[in-house]
């Protein structure tokens, strides 16, 4: 196995609220190998976007480590962070809100290069912008267009081009297709996969959509209320889902197939992530919930090689 490009060690992000600490990211241990994709799945409020932002130091972690090529980037000073951003970029969820409406397409794509100062010659910069536009499938005539003149799919292509502008190794894709129509969504997913093949990019792909994540990921982490409850290869997750929440998520997806029947629907909703009680956070919605689930702290145990679960039902076998 090759060394992970990026790894988190007991990563935590708590937000202070008037009612106590909100556990957005709680002891997350993940790693992504170079050239691979880790899918992070969960419903709104599970902390998946915060996790992506903490990795890029867009929000500061409360504790733990983020190792990039073995170095803890949480210890970096401002200058080092700026340098790090040339390696790590992000594609944002909402192509309507993440582009400055007063900048043209070329200004948006060139901005990261300008900030990092990697290309100073203006003609070379121009060529780079055109190259990036053709890489992501944007017609060159749009170079002076403003975002409002373009539809969602084209705007998201600008977001992709901007992330690629500084030739990064690692990109956090935060729900890059959820604001798009299905036919456009498929275009962007294909684009992201082609770019990975060509450039050897490493992705963290954050989404709420399990079918999208299956399509694009090597490994998948399932998050629930700030914790990672299951982690394994994409294939294993769909063949042998272990955590009751993962099973519930899979059961809830309506497949476009008349012979498909949805599985058992779980009751209830997310509980508050503010000052969560000890024990399993899924317990109140879980049909297997036993007394000990409410008392004991759970461990993230490796049930079969490479398949980790945080559930009392599997921790006793170890």
């Amino acid at each position, binding site marked *: 196995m090759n060394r992970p490009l990026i790894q988190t060690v007991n990563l935590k992000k708590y937000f202070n609220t008037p009612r106590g600490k909100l556990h957005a990211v709680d002891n997350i241990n993940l790693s992504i190998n170079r050239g691979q994709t880790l899918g992070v799945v969960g*419903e*709104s409020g599970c902390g998946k976007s915060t996790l992506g932002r903490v990795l890029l130091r867009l929000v500061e972690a409360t504790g733990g480590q983020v190792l990039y090529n073995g170095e803890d980037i949480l210890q970096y000073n401002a200058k080092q962070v700026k340098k790090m951003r040339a390696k790590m970029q992000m594609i944002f969820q909402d192509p309507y809100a993440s582009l400055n409406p007063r900048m043209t397409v070329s200004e948006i794509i060139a901005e990261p290069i300008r900030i990092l100062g990697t290309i100073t010659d203006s003609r070379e910069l121009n060529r780079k912008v055109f190259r990036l536009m053709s890489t992501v499938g944007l017609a060159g005539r749009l170079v002076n267009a403003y975002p409002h003149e373009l*539809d*969602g*799919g084209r705007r998201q292509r600008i977001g992709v081009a901007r992330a690629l502008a500084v030739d990064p190794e690692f990109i956090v894709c935060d729900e890059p297709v959820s604001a798009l*129509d*299905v*036919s*456009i*969504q*498929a*275009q962007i*997913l*294909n684009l992201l*996969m082609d770019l990975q093949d060509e450039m050897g990019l490493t992705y963290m792909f954050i989404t*709420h*959509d*399990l*079918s*999208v994540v*299956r*399509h694009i990921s090597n490994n998948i982490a399932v998050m629930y209320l700030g914790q990672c409850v299951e982690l394994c290869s994409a*294939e294993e997750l*769909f063949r042998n889902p272990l955590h009751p929440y993962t099973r*519930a*998520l*899979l*059961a*809830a*997806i*309506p*497949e*476009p*197939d*008349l012979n*498909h029947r*949805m599985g058992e*629907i*779980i*009751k209830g*909703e*997310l509980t508050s992530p503010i000052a969560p009680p000890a024990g399993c956070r899924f317990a109140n919605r879980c049909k297997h919930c036993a007394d000990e689930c409410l008392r004991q702290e759970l461990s993230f145990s490796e049930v079969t090689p490479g398949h980790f679960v945080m559930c009392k039902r599997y921790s006793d076998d170890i």
Partner: protein
Amino acid sequence: MSDKFFSIENLSVEYIADDEVVKAVNGITLSMKRGETLGLVGETGAGKTTSALAVMRLLPPRTGRVVSGSITVGDIDILSLSEPEMRKLRGELVAMIYQDPMTSLNPVITVGDQILEVLELHKRQSKAAMKARVAELLELVGISAERADEYPHQFSGGMRQRVVIAMALACEPELLIADEPTTALDVTIQAQVLQMIRELKTKLNTSMLLITHDLGVVAHTCDNVAIMYAGEIVEQGTVADIFNGKRHHPYTNGLFGSIPRLNKQSKRLNPIEGMLPDPTNLPEGCNFSPRCPSCMEICKIKSPRFVQSGTHRIACHLYSSEGGANA
């Protein structure tokens, strides 16, 4: 048998922008029987919501107008009604569940009072009787009646959508229009709300027009399906026709090819190239022709008519010379 309860005939709707005319809906024809669920499927800008607003007579008054066509619910011709007459029927005969539960509720009125408002407009009843009905409606959609005095912000997204559904059901409408009722919700909550809608529909024998872009939702809730593209219906049939039939409109094939599937691992998706045509400047001939992988010469000149075989109708030149009675 063929007693249509709800029908739209040749409906066209335009929006007038500064100096342009946006052709949002272009001559659609639909019908459904009592108790049925019809899925209206399409992507952003296909004209789904505009069609629904036309049925509710809620098109923006200055910019939107029905150019031609008729809409009938029961034996009432919706488009010929005066505004006061329509106001009486809105909620009682036809009601709508709006897409976004975060913005379709009034943030400064308790949910109980918002449901009560619907009853006050339509029913002459005592306050106590109406209060009791509010409690009943909340329980019906799975919310404890004690929460009637809470405000929308105290509810989660799924719970708010239940409140919106309770409002729509308050006067037991005969036709329910649900505009992307679960799009803003998480999957586990979507599954709960869809199950509830299915159960309520059976219990109350309501007819439903379900607007969605999600073919998965359609497979699990609808009896019939109409696929819309650029303001037109391109394919129509029973769910079996659409999901299991052999022949499809190329756009329908494109939609199915774009969806990543759970039970199949394929390396690449097969999206539809290009994007929706500009509704102020629709192409000659078939609206889908610029994106169509099987586009022929005739497609660029003449817009296709429906080819019918049984319950299945497809508007595409690919099938027009083959067997099956022309519609």
